[in-house]
């Protein structure tokens, strides 16, 4: 018997949990959610890997290629001007969405991974030297570990790792102790992709800033789920991906404080990032173009802007509230199943339910749920150190978006019982 049976019935999910989100209407905006997989209704619970796209985003991509396609920032012709204007309007949309002071602080990149590599290879290579330290946490995604390892290896610097407790929460006191005069940069996830933990960013950033250490935030798992405000956080760099926030793949954002970006050397050389080139000397373009060598993902930027407008229409605060209720419901429902253990039980969590089932490997869980049309992720979630921390090889992870329903959580719970039945 699960606790779900004791919960009051909400009837139709049209206004689920009374938070003002009309899930049924929202689901109609996402064409893929109507399809079947393996003869079953798709239950998509792999949003931390990538999110689905609303019709408006899909249409924005084809509209761009059908009506606006041209190279930007260089043509004198009509279409080039139009494409340039749309591309730069998307930059303004991003700026406003994360409340960055200036659009020139919004650098378009391929994704979170490229954003972090950019900072490691420019800011990092200038400021990190032999014997210096880069501080990360145990719960980082590989993309916020490996770029720093590469840098430390090259420079003879040390990668230090702030520990977490058994609930998957950062130990702030330990973190503070690891901030030394040798620490040149802190790189930390806003939300852990494997555990769902929301880190106390304000405190982390204040602690680092007291020692004049800049902070890079991996925001890939935060931006789709909550309002983020660069001026409230006061972080120095913030990286996120379009494809996890209902926009297209191959597109991402690096926010950086203008004063830092100005002082950084370029990342890649090429067209667009220059203001003049001779064989003797090249002068670099102004921000943000200095970091945007080559023809960018123009359609991707425009469609990301459309995804943000879509999110704004729903309202980030409503999204956070709805997903919180959904996660609480899922946590109750799944943890009530005998033999299931949750991995990641922080007080502050977003969007992620990682679990293991006694005696059954997550990979087998994933295969059996897939037969029920339920898409989850199984494995180490590109966060192997986290798995080592909890002494497990892998987890099964369900991750939510605002288009997921209580009924889908019920399907997950039923699916888990089916898994146990197969292995009984």
């Amino acid at each position: 018997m699960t606790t779900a049976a004791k919960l009051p019935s909400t009837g139709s999910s049209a206004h689920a949990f009374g938070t003002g989100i009309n899930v049924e209407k929202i689901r109609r905006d996402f064409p893929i959610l109507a399809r079947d997989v393996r003869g079953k209704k798709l239950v998509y619970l792999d949003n931390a890997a990538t999110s689905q796209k609303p019709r408006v985003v899909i249409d924005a991509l084809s509209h761009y290629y059908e009506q606006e396609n041209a190279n930007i920032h260089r043509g004198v012709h009509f279409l080039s001007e139009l494409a340039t204007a749309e591309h730069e309007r998307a930059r303004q949309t991003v700026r406003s969405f994360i409340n960055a002071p200036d659009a020139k602080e919004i650098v378009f990149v391929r994704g979170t991974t490229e954003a972090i590599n950019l900072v490691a290879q420019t800011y990092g290579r200038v400021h990190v030297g032999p014997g210096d330290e880069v501080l990360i946490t145990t719960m980082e995604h590989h993309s916020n570990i490996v770029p720093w390892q590469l840098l430390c290896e090259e420079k003879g610097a040390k990668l230090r790792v702030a520990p977490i407790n058994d609930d998957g929460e950062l130990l702030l006191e330990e973190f503070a102790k690891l901030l030394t005069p040798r620490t040149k940069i802190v790189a930390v996830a806003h939300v852990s992709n494997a555990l769902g933990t929301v880190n106390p960013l304000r405190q982390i950033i204040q602690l680092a800033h007291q020692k004049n250490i800049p902070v890079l935030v991996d925001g890939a798992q935060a931006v789709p789920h909550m309002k983020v405000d660069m001026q409230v956080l006061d972080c120095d760099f913030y990286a996120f991906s379009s494809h996890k926030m209902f926009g297209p793949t191959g597109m991402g954002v690096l926010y950086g404080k203008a004063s830092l970006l100005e002082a950084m050397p370029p990342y890649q050389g090429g067209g667009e990032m220059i203001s003049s080139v001779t064989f003797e000397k090249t002068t670099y373009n102004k921000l943000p173009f200095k970091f945007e060598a080559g023809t960018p993902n123009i359609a991707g930027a425009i469609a990301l802007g459309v995804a943000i407008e879509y999110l704004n229409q729903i309202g980030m605060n409503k999204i956070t509230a709805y997903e919180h209720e959904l996660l609480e419901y899922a946590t109750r429902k799944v943890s009530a199943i005998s033999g299931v253990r949750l991995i990641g039980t922080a007080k502050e969590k977003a969007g992620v339910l990682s679990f293991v089932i006694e005696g059954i490997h997550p990979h087998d869980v994933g295969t059996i749920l897939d037969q029920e049309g339920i898409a989850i992720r199984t494995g180490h979630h590109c966060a192997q150190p986290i798995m080592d921390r909890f002494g497990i090889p892998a987890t099964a992870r369900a991750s939510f978006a605002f288009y997921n329903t209580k009924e889908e959580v019920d399907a997950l719970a039923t699916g888990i019982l089916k898994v146990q039945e197969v292995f009984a």
Partner: protein
Amino acid sequence: MPDLRDLYQEVILEHSKAPRNFHTIAQANQKAEGFNPLCGDHFTVYVTVDGDAIQDIGFQGSGCAISKASASMMTQAVKGKSKAEAKKLFDTFHKLVTTGEANGDRNDLGKLAVFSGVSEFPVRVKCATLAWHTLQAALEGKQEKVSTE
């Protein structure tokens, strides 16, 4: 549409819960480590080879039901066989789990034929073959860790 029971046959579930030869062999003269970085499966295969014969074999490690059952049944199947026979059996087994067919060699497979359902789940082929790749590496005396990627 593939059926779950084709993949999770009783024999496979039984071996995954109670794997045979699931131990180290102190006096093994060949061993190798195999690893699937995508799902974290990790096995060490120990072999005592006498001349050309696989006299004893054991394995340790962790993995999903498919990889564990495959490792368990592999140890039973190759014990007492020659290196060449083990290699041939792996080739036949590999064909079975990738195509569902083993043609004329099906009889050689014996109980291992229960893995034919794996072919309908392409992402699980690596699970079914991890221990076999590891055994090959052990027999060939390879030092580096075997990876499915």
